[in-house]
């Protein structure tokens, strides 16, 4: 691999963060970017600055051919070739690089959604599931941006429930073609894409993916949707009317289309998460600049505590989001590096690695999309009346961010995925969750003392992370005792558990990053990172407790309810941080710097 992360890590099992400690040394953070990562980040940033930002207005009004031309330009720089093997015209770089590019291109969502659909869901199905011929035929064009890809899973009547699709495929009498009929809805890039991965059911039964070229007979594109946001991107329905697809263009196995649909979504999700953090980083920069020059009551509004609090919260979110995103891709890279040389050819193995981190990918998707929605909302607020009008950038950011909670699996679906996968892994014994819950229950009942180790200055932070894990496991344990397998039908409980899992991952990622920073640069130089970590922990532990109480109140009653609530209270006990003071310090620093910084 061109860039294997410099970290000597063993493979960390997906989801294991809930039950195992994780040493900071083996956690990948943005501070571990190599020289090469930094150069790639710089190229992506320059591309956005020179090619995208000056064209936003035109893209918002869908100037013909422009988007396509920009996809090509991105391709010329290699920005679309990162996940494609060298044998097919790609660069085959690490997942950290993939995430960095998604992060840096996210400044204008109209373009990044286009690029994301092209490189990710539009290209990866072929990378991971294509035959040799399919790869040779399509990947070089997709990697260079000569050809644009799209992915058509959703239909008007089923998107979350995509396996239930109505599009059908029948083998032609001569056995040379599949004849497809049906429609697809909300297909990103449809307006100009050349190649579509389309899902349909063979004989109305076997869910299967097909590679459809735009020029195939019977294939047509409907009108552009009028969207709330990401207006720069193209979103149209597809219409298949006796569309003739050569049998060689079946992707993967007949009836195994769901493997493709879900695997590719995992990559889509981590990239979307990284992109959301990138958008948020841009929004805080604009917000600070505005707050520094807008005057009210004889001061600039950046001097007001309530505005500073907003800026601090944004920074805290970005710090934490970066920690989560790069920790996750770092784990993937470590696992892929563990495949040795075979990572180049053994796509099923690489796919497996990505599937391994399905839980983390969903976490990033949900958390990132909610972070950026929070950030744009506060950004509009900072801009006051100007936040509500089109001449200022807050309005665009506000509209653009909303779709992130809807596509790549709605956040509801992703929350169900998180808890559902955890339980599945627990049941199959891949993840020793049940023993961990049992151990915790015994410990709680016997009133065993807390077990913190270490005497460095992160004891309190680690304790909070440990508490978060325990509270989550405790509540999940109680719920699964009550409902057993039927917990799948208790969506509110499933989502509450997912929220505890997400917060735990976020908290731990922030602490690991701060610890690593402090070990590298000393605590004095890491004050800002530590402050951001503390602010995040303070809020997160409250949210976790609140979710635990919700779960317990739903499943227990009487004495049992009281006892269990007391346990949560005991597990969650901690010395409060002065978050007002910490936020003041954080705001001061980012306002001074004029952008998000970590030192």
């Amino acid at each position, binding site marked *: 691999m*061109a860039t294997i992360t410099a970290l000597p890590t063993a493979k960390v099992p997906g989801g294991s963060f809930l039950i195992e400690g994780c040493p900071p040394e083996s956690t990948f953070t943005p501070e571990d970017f190599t*020289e090469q990562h930094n*150069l790639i980040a710089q190229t992506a940033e*320059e591309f956005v600055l020179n090619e995208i930002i000056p064209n936003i207005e035109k893209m918002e009004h869908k100037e013909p051919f422009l988007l396509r031309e920009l996809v090509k330009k991105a391709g010329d*720089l290699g920005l679309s070739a990162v996940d494609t093997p060298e044998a097919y015209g790609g*660069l085959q770089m690490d997942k950290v690089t993939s995430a960095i590019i998604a992060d840096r291109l996210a400044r204008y969502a109209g373009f990044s959604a286009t690029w994301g659909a092209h490189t990710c869901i539009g290209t990866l199905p072929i990378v991971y599931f294509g035959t040799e011929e399919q790869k040779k035929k399509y990947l070089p064009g997709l990697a260079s941006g000569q050809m644009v890809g799209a992915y058509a899973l959703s239909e008007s009547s089923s998107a979350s429930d995509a396996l239930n699709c109505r599009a059908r495929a029948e083998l032609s009498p001569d056995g040379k073609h599949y004849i497809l009929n049906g429609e697809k809805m909300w297909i990103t890039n449809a307006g100009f894409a050349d190649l579509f991965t389309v899902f349909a059911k063979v004989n109305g039964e076997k869910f299967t993916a097909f590679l459809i070229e735009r020029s195939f007979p019977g294939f047509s594109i409907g009108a552009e949707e009028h969207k709330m946001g990401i207006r720069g991107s193209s979103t149209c329905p597809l219409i298949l009317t006796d569309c003739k697809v050569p049998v060689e263009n079946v992707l993967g196995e007949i009836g195994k289309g769901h493997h493709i649909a879900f695997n590719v979504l995992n990559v889509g999700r981590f990239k979307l998460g990284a992109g959301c953090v990138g958008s948020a980083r841009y929004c805080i920069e604009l917000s600070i600049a505005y707050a520094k020059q807008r005057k009210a009551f004889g001061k600039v509004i950046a001097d007001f505590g309530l505005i500073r609090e907003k800026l601090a919260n944004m920074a805290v979110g970005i710090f934490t989001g970066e920690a989560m995103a790069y920790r996750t891709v770092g784990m993937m890279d470590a696992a892929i590096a563990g495949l040795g040389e075979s990572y180049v050819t053994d796509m099923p193995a690489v796919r497996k690695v990505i599937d391994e981190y399905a839980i983390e990918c969903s976490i990033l998707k949900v958390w990132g999309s909610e972070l950026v929605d929070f950030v744009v909302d506060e950004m509009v607020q900072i801009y006051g009346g100007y936040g509500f009008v089109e001449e200022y950038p807050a309005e665009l950011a506000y509209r653009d961010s909303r779709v992130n909670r809807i596509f790549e699996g709605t956040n509801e679906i992703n929350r169900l995925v998180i808890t559902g996968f955890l339980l599945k892994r627990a049941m199959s014994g891949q993840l020793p969750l049940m023993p961990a819950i049992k151990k915790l229950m015994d410990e709680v009942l016997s009133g065993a003392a807390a077990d913190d180790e270490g005497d460095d200055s992160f004891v309190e932070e680690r304790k909070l992370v440990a508490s978060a894990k325990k509270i989550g496991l405790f509540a999940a344990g109680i719920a699964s005792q009550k409902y057993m397998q039927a917990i799948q039908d208790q969506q509110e409980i499933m989502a509450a558990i997912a929220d505890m899992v997400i917060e735990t991952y976020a908290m731990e990622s922030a602490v690991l990053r701060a610890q690593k920073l402090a070990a590298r640069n000393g605590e004095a130089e890491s004050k800002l990172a530590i402050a951001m970590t503390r602010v995040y922990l303070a809020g997160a532990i409250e949210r976790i407790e609140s979710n635990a109480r919700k779960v317990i109140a739903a499943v227990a009653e009487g004495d049992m309810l009281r006892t269990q609530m007391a346990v949560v209270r005991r597990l969650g006990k901690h010395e409060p941080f002065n978050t007002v003071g910490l936020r003041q310090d954080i705001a001061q620093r980012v306002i001074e710097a004029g952008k998000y910084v970590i*030192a």
Partner: protein
Amino acid sequence: MKILVCMKQVPQKDAPLKLNESGTWIREDVSYEVNEPDAYALEEALRQKEKHGGEVVVITSGPARAQQVLREALAKGADRAIHLEDAAFVGLDALNTARAFAAAIKDEQFDLIFTGLQSDDYGYAQTGVVLAELLGWPHATIIMQIEKNEGGIRVKRELEAGFFQFVDMPLPAVLTIQSGINKLRYATLIGIKQAKNKPLRKVSMSEVQSALSANLQTIERLYVPQKTKQTQFLEGPASEVAKKLVDKLRNEVRVL
């Protein structure tokens, strides 16, 4: 043509600067970037090579972090790099920096050496000119265009007030390049990937030490200027404003 491009790593333009303990320079922990005119110098060198063939070599001095500018240059198409690696290079004046470069390239035969017009941090605008003197080569400054011709090159220099000067020069020569004279290229990902395998020669301080002497120019103290100006807006109808102004000039500023 064989072209050497001198490139410097400087603090990023918008980076907030902090003074170091001794108050003689800034602290190391800022973000860095390529000195702006140097980026144009590199671009010009790459274009000359594309036209006439040859080799582009980049050189820098500074601590390990400075290697980033060389990698960036290699990623954009330079063929090899020379890194005078030591934190102590940061403190050298223009003469000593030029001496160090001259010593490091004594076994090379370049046709042209490009430097940026000046550095965005020290702003001496001397290193290129001094280097030419040390090598005994002709030089020209503030270059906007370079054409190869029979006897050597014809260059376009920027003068003041919209005037330009065209000069015919023999080779080898040293040119200091103006910003904005061409369109910079991106470092492509394939370029970045390949840059890792291009040769990068490291030169230690001890290898060039004998060519150096005490700095002739030193920074004794660096400080952030005190804000002394104050703006007051006088409001009201013109007749009142005039009255207030006269009053201020007479009684506060005491110039009337």
